[in-house]
């Protein structure tokens, strides 16, 4: 900084002059650690044997950082750090509140398990083509999306994980992958470009991109600015990312084509980033507009969950069944957004935790079943109960979880959402959630009957893949499913804190702008 002597500049109006405390670095860690690990992996691209262990270590460090961040956020409220020591809104702020920190934690947990499972699923060629670097950069993008407090920065993180996901999706270059990836890439790019369009108009309206700044200025410009248009554009753009009906067709076209561990990571994590962005923009920035749109979102939610699960009923390929189950889960989460009440949003957040873990586990289970039975097709897969009863046990638990039946984790978020729908006088939405639960039981119950109970109808592979690693991964994911199902109180408390964090915008604004004076 070249300041001429004799001309003292008072920087206190623009920059933080106090040194950054070590605890503040927690908010950057969940993004910085995966980026650095990804870069190291790229440099060590010839040493593919090291990739898996480096990635697992990097993700474990990210997980620790996320745990520290969530503990601090739950203890002391949102944590804000503005890059370059500028005062907000001049620099790009990272602002972790209970919603972002908890979702980032669960996403990283899922990624750790996937990285571990990938040691069996991704061979030397896959590693050579960069599975682990792509995965680390994707997790950096996901972490950045959950933690940033700047809406243009959110767009950048979206693109970071999007382009990494392209790399993961085409890994292997099979015909079906190229087909699926083309549709996935084009439709997702259109979605994020719509997001950028909305952000351009938002910048023209507010002259700022800091979300806290937008939230505090929204009331002042509501009379004259097209805020409803912005809210609708964000609903469309993030609805595409989240795979909400009727803009969800990229998901069933692509999620069954990549390696199963990639599908597991995508199915678990990516659609929830769309849900998170919807919560962050619509609930925190544009609450009156959300109220205006709530009827529309309720219909979208009901259509997404029911049509999604009916798609699952019509599929033969196990991975395609799961793709449609992901979509129907998105519908359930949108129901809480439509209600907009504290309990509804807490239900959405809890369902997001549950869905990340359970969908990843279901995809990994499909991978284990394919390794044992030699096929993903429900007309060939059979007789697994006779040979591998443990697979049957995992399948039963995860199916109960996805359908929302006790003792697994799906029950409580659905209870919260159904009660919130009834409290808001929308019994039909509660009915849609319950009907979706029944249809999920049918769709996945049929998978259980055909693949596991049915006596063997087709010869499996001569040497079935050893499921040991799969069992370890499934155990790691099933434990939180059972714990959340049997002892949901702490998770409900976190989900309620997360819902309060976005409903109570003044508190968030107060954290980003401590004096409330800087303009």
């Amino acid at each position, binding site marked *: 900084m070249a300041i*001429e002597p004799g*001309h003292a*500049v*008072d920087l206190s109006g623009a920059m933080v002059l106090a040194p950054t405390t070590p605890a503040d670095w927690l908010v950057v860690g969940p993004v910085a650690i995966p980026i650095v690990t990804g870069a190291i992996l790229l440099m060590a691209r010839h040493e593919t044997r090291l990739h898996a262990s480096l990635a697992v270590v990097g993700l474990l460090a990210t997980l620790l950082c996320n745990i520290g961040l969530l503990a601090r956020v739950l203890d002391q409220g949102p944590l804000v750090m503005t890059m370059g020591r500028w005062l907000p809104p001049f620099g790009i702020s990272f602002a972790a509140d209970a919603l972002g920190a908890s979702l980032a934690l669960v996403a990283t947990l899922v990624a750790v398990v996937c990285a571990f499972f990938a040691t069996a699923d991704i061979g030397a060629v896959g590693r050579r083509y960069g599975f682990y670097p792509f995965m680390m950069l994707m997790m950096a993008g996901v972490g950045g999306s959950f933690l940033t407090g700047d809406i*243009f920065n959110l767009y*950048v993180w979206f*693109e970071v994980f*999007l*382009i990494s996901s*392209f790399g993961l999706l*085409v890994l292997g*270059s099979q*015909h*079906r*992958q*190229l*087909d*699926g*990836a*083309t*549709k996935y*890439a*084009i439709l997702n*790019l*259109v979605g994020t*470009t719509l997001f*950028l*369009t909305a952000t*351009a*108009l938002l*910048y*023209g*309206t507010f002259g700022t991109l800091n979300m806290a700044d937008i939230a505090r200025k929204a009331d002042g410009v509501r009379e004259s600015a097209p805020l409803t248009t912005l809210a609708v554009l964000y609903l469309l753009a993030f609805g595409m990312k989240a795979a909400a009906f009727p803009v969800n067709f990229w998901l*069933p*076209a*692509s999620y*069954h*084509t990549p390696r199963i561990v990639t599908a597991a990571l995508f199915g678990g994590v990516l659609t929830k980033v769309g849900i998170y962005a919807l919560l962050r923009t619509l609930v925190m920035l544009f609450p009156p507009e959300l109220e205006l749109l709530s009827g529309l979102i309720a219909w979208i939610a009901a259509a997404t969950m029911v049509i999604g699960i009916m798609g699952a009923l*019509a*599929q*033969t*390929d196990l991975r395609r069944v799961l793709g449609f189950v992901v979509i129907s889960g998105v519908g359930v989460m949108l129901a809480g957004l439509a209600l907009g009440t504290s309990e509804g949003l807490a239900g959405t957040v809890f369902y997001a935790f549950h869905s990340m873990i359970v969908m990843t586990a279901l995809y990994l289970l499909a991978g284990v079943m394919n390794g044992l039975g030699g096929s993903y097709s*429900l*007309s060939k897969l*059979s007789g697994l109960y006779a040979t591998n009863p443990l697979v049957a046990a995992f399948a039963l638990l995860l199916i109960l979880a996805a359908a929302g039946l006790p003792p697994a984790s799906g029950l409580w978020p659905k209870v919260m959402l159904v009660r919130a729908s009834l409290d808001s006088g929308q019994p039909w939405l509660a009915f849609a959630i319950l009907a979706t639960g029944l249809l999920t039981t049918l769709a996945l119950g*049929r998978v259980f*009957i*055909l693949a596991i109970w*049915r*006596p063997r*109808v087709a010869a499996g592979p001569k040497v079935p893949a050893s499921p040991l690693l799969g069992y370890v991964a499934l155990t790691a994911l099933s434990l939180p499913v059972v714990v959340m199902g049997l002892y949901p109180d702490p998770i409900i408390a976190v989900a309620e804190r997360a819902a309060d964090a976005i409903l109570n915008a003044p508190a968030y604004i107060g954290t980003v702008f401590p004096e409330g004076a800087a303009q």
Partner: protein
Amino acid sequence: METILAATVAIFFAVSIYLILSKHIIRILLGVAIFSNAVNLTIFTAGRVVREVPPIIPVELDTPDRLTANPLPQALILTAIVISFSIFAFLLVLAFRAYQELGTDDTDGMRVAEPEGEDLPPLGY
């Protein structure tokens, strides 16, 4: 000036949406490229257009002494250009590979991942 730019943005959006609605991947990609440029122009216009006043603060002052051009939209556009350019390059390669492998760039013919007339799952055993 804003009116002309707004009209240009409108034309860009119209052309890109028309192209994206096409069945052929290469036309869709051209549409996507124009789409991202339409958005870049939107950012530029939304940031207000001020002519020929560079945003430089004189040495002896703490704030600019008159209305200057807004540098932020240009930073945003540069970021967006880099992102959309790299993704567009990726998409071109992907589309070319898909054309080589699948033998078509007609989206109606690209049914490898979702084959037509698949069997329904067994109804019992």
